[in-house]
């Protein structure tokens, strides 16, 4: 037991100088990460809302494709889907302009499936009485959805949506595998050159973590805003 600890080379644990030296380069990678994550969150949310509503449709031509899409995306690894996009599609003559675009498409379409499920459960959680009250006031289906149901569903959807947004942020790291020079890829480059993987990957992890904390803070603010109509206590 003591032998085990005495053999650890603590002096190599973290090289602050290297970390600070490589920070500008890592932040350049972070910029790409944030671009991919930002676009993916927006696209995933839009696709998720459309698929989620289609999934609840009474009409099979909307419901079944939505169900299939959700099932496929949830049932396959994101990395495999990204490989299909980036390495598979060129075989049949479809090529992405850049690997960043492929990454955004892959991440958006994959997480949209999870968001569709969030949308569906949030909308179903709005009591039936709300629909009926709107109906008796002669509001149409879309008026009811837009003015009555979605605002209430949004409150319920905020926490799970932000969980998924954090997964989106972390999911962008898979883009490094298709040579997108984002945060993780940048870290790998330096780690390869300096042979200090420990310092580099810890630094990369901390940067992801800090961005997650910011996302969490945005979530808290939204939760306060959407809960304002509930009685306190």
């Amino acid at each position, binding site marked *: 037991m003591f032998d085990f600890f005495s053999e650890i080379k603590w002096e190599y644990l973290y090289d602050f100088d290297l970390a600070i030296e490589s920070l500008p380069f890592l932040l350049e990678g972070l910029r790409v990460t944030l671009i991919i994550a930002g676009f993916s969150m927006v696209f995933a949310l839009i696709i998720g809302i459309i698929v989620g509503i289609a999934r609840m449709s009474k009409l099979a031509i909307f419901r079944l494709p939505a169900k299939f899409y959700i099932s496929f995306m949830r049932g396959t690894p994101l990395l495999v889907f990204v490989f299909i996009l980036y390495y598979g599609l060129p075989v049949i003559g479809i090529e992405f302009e850049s690997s960043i675009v492929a990454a955004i498409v892959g991440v958006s379409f994959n997480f949209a499936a999870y968001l569709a499920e969030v949308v569906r459960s949030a909308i179903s959680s709005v009591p039936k*009485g709300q629909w*009926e*009250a709107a*109906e008796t006031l002669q509001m149409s289906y879309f008026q009811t959805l837009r*003015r009555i149901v979605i605002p*209430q569903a949004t409150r319920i959807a905020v926490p799970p949506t932000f969980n998924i947004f954090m997964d989106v942020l972390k999911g962008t790291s898979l883009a490094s595998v298709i040579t997108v020079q984002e945060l993780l890829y940048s870290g790998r480059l330096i780690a390869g050159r300096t042979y200090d993987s420990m310092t580099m990957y810890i630094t990369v992890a901390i940067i992801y973590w800090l961005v997650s904390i910011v996302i969490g803070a945005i979530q808290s603010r939204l939760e306060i805003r959407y809960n304002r109509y*509930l009685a306190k206590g």
Partner: protein
Amino acid sequence: MITVENLKKKFGDQVVLESINFSVNKGEVVCLVGASGSGKTTLLRCLNLLEEPSAGTLKIGNKRVEFGKQKVTKEDVKEIRQYSGMVFQSFNLFPHKTLIENIIEAPITVQKRDKKEVVVEANEILEKVGLIEHKDKYPDALSGGQQQRAAIARSLMMHPEILLFDEPTSALDPQLVREVLKVIEELAKEGQTMVIVTHEMNFARRIANRALFMDEGYILEEGPAEKVLSNPKEARTREFLALLEDE
């Protein structure tokens, strides 16, 4: 105003309403009474097609719809609903909107009326139901009685020819029942046509022109409220009333 002929309603194999015939004249207040499960709420919900009857006909105003033969279209539903407003047992106010927002919502989004004019009218109606000082509060901050009065105000904003009430005081604490009944009574005096499902027998005797006693999907007894609710012909009606007195 309303004519119902031979109305039937089945949920799957279960018959909930059987050969219902009745009518409501303009300015009349009709109370539906009966035990739970007797079909009175379902009948009320058939009147604005929240439930679609399985057979029979429903005529409201100038609109007549026949059920069971061809599919009821969206247009049919829309036309029927133009005549009525509904007040629910559980209020169903929109929790994310303040009282005034709740009340101006439908006139603005559905009827496309001018917002200023709607707000003026909303203030008048809130004044009338005694909620003007709460108009900027969210429903969650109000008592059940206040919420129900707001729900009545919300229906009134659409100027319905008929107001339907589904046990409007059943979800309220006893001390809050009176304030809601008072508002309904006020409407009765103004000549508002109303169909009310209720367990408040004294209230029904006082304001209703007619009462229908329902039992197992049938209208068992019908007549002037005073007579049906104080001196009924049918043994079942007497039994039911005696049970309520006991409580």
